């Protein structure tokens, strides 16, 4: 732990770190030169696969393996989409990389495009990031000037165009097929899979969608080698045949009731306690922690006595959470009422549900209506069971929706009601002394606009 030095964040915070000049002074674009001169696209795919790199956007799918799903000897075009939609509450690591070290992202992107034989890449960025947009556009222009982009890059014969494409304020665009639909100019309704994007994606052509931090890792794998990457993190759990291991450095976003909120880099597998104490300077105002979100709000909730949870791809699942997600840890102190947390979570998902699948559209909005009623002192104990019923019936896992947004909506509900049921029951009974035991149907309160 003590000898670990940040790699992804090495330049963040340094003067002019967003310029090509400063990036090149610290060895920037050497990995790209090496790759183009000495490796074939297949070599790059194989080495990325061997590194054990898993996608940093939330699902943790092995990156090299994803690339090998592209059809062999395809005549093209093959499209590469960089997912810079971020948007998961609590998450801002991609923003930091794009604002303070955009060339690191672009170098990784160019190497990844080379590996996948893509000649056109779309850099899909959410529109709420004006500074990142400016910095990435500048950096792309600098790359064309220097011959890192365009025709015949560095004399290799490989050509690549990168186009920056702005979103328009919709969380669902972070889902890879939602992103593709949005890129095509349509509403961002996720597609039914299969076919997976690798077979039929953007503009009905084979497409790879990767996250910003993922391609930044690719750059470092070719700078420092597969062995370096595998020396960081946690090997696969021998008792879990489905665990592919959690290798490499990871950006953790720490926010909420913490003394020093920020984006920190650590080896995969750091615990929540270590993150809070060693990086976050402890819980604010000298208070005790009550709970934490392990990796963006859709991953669920950890109780304070579960903070020894290791934040690797396999860790949060052992505590009933959905997974590591975006590794955005949001800490809540002892003053937080879980009814407020849950209403916030439900409100977010009902606002961001794209409306395509009925279980998600109706489930998330009814959960918000019920939580609003509970919050305003009209809750009944039965509502907790109804909320659980919703949570258990929406999502990919019960098989009722096309994408995972509803699973993300369900997990905070499931975790919170399981881990804090007593508190919620006390709240309902004390705020609705005459009606908490009712079980007959009640109308929703019109206290909150859903949209």
């Amino acid at each position, binding site marked *: 732990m003590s000898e670990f030095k940040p790699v992804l964040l090495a330049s963040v915070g340094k003067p002019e770190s967003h310029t090509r000049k400063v990036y090149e002074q610290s060895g920037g674009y050497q990995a790209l030169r090496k790759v183009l001169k000495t490796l074939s696209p297949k070599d790059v795919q194989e080495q990325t696969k061997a590194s054990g790199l898993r996608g940093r956007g939330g699902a943790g799918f092995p990156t090299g393996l994803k690339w090998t799903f592209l059809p062999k000897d395809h005549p093209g075009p093959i499209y590469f989409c960089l997912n810079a939609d971020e948007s998961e*509450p609590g998450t801002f690591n991609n923003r930091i990389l794009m604002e303070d070290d955009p060339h690191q992202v672009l170098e990784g992107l160019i190497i990844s495009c080379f590996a996948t034989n893509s000649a056109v890449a779309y850099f899909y960025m959410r*529109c*709420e990031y004006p500074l990142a947009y400016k910095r990435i556009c500048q950096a792309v222009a600098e790359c064309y000037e220097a011959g890192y982009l365009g025709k015949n890059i560095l004399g290799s014969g490989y050509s690549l165009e990168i186009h920056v*494409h702005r979103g*328009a304020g919709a969380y669902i665009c972070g889902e890879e097929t939602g992103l593709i639909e*949005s890129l095509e100019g*349509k509403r961002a309704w996720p597609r039914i899979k299969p076919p997976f994007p690798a077979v039929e994606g953007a503009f009905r052509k084979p497409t790879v969608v990767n996250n910003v931090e993922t391609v930044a890792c690719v750059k470092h794998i070719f700078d420092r080698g597969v062995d370096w990457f595998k020396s960081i993190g946690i090997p696969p759990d021998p008792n879990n045949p489905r665990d592919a291991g959690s290798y490499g450095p990871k950006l953790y976003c720490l926010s909420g009731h913490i003394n020093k909120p920020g984006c920190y880099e650590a080896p995969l597998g750091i615990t929540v306690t270590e993150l809070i104490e060693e990086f976050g300077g402890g819980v604010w105002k000298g208070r005790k922690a009550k709970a934490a979100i392990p990796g963006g709000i859709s991953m669920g909730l950890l109780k304070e006595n579960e903070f020894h949870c290791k934040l690797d791809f396999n860790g949060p699942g052992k505590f009933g959470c959905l997974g590591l997600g975006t590794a955005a840890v949001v800490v809540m102190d002892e003053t937080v009422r879980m009814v407020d947390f849950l209403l916030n979570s439900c409100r977010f998902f009902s606002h961001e549900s794209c409306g395509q699948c009925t279980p998600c559209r109706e489930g998330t909005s009814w959960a918000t209506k019920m939580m609003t009623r509970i919050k305003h002192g009209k809750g009944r104990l039965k509502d907790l069971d109804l909320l659980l019923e919703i949570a258990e019936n929406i999502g990919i896992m019960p098989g009722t929706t096309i994408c995972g947004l509803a699973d993300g909506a369900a997990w905070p509900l499931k975790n919170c009601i399981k881990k804090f049921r007593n508190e919620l029951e006390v709240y309902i009974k004390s705020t609705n002394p005459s009606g908490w035991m009712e079980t007959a149907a009640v109308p929703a309160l019109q206290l909150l606009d859903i949209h």
Partner: protein
Amino acid sequence: MADKPRILTDEMIAEIKAFFPRYPSKQAVTLPALHIVNEKLRYVPLRAVVEIAHLLELHPSQVQDTLTFYGYFKQDAPAGRCRLWVCRSISCALRGGDELLDHLSHSLGVKPGETTADGRITLEYAECLGACEHAPCVLANEKLIPSVSHHEADELVQTVK
């Protein structure tokens, strides 16, 4: 239709057409075109939708379908000169984001989504602005304002001309 003046200026049309070579379909230029018009006019009126559709060889309903899906584009009336997005997602909410939004709503006399009578400010709520280390945060047009107190919010409102 024909005798009414165009809404899209030659400049906007040129800017939109410059996006055509980037994509294999003209429909993919929908979001860039909506951004261009929304930036210039501060909204995208229905007539602009028709003109965009014409440029992109689409039916107007296709452009309108896309426009209404996203939360970013205004259609009924132009947004104020400063569009003030207050984050209400969990990291900001834990540090007073909802209270900040209420405060601004009261002091400006508008609900989220509405524009002040003088046309200066449109107040909006935002889902996670991705600046959680600066909670509670506000995006004022293109400028991110970190850790905004009620007092700082009042001062910010004063600076908008």
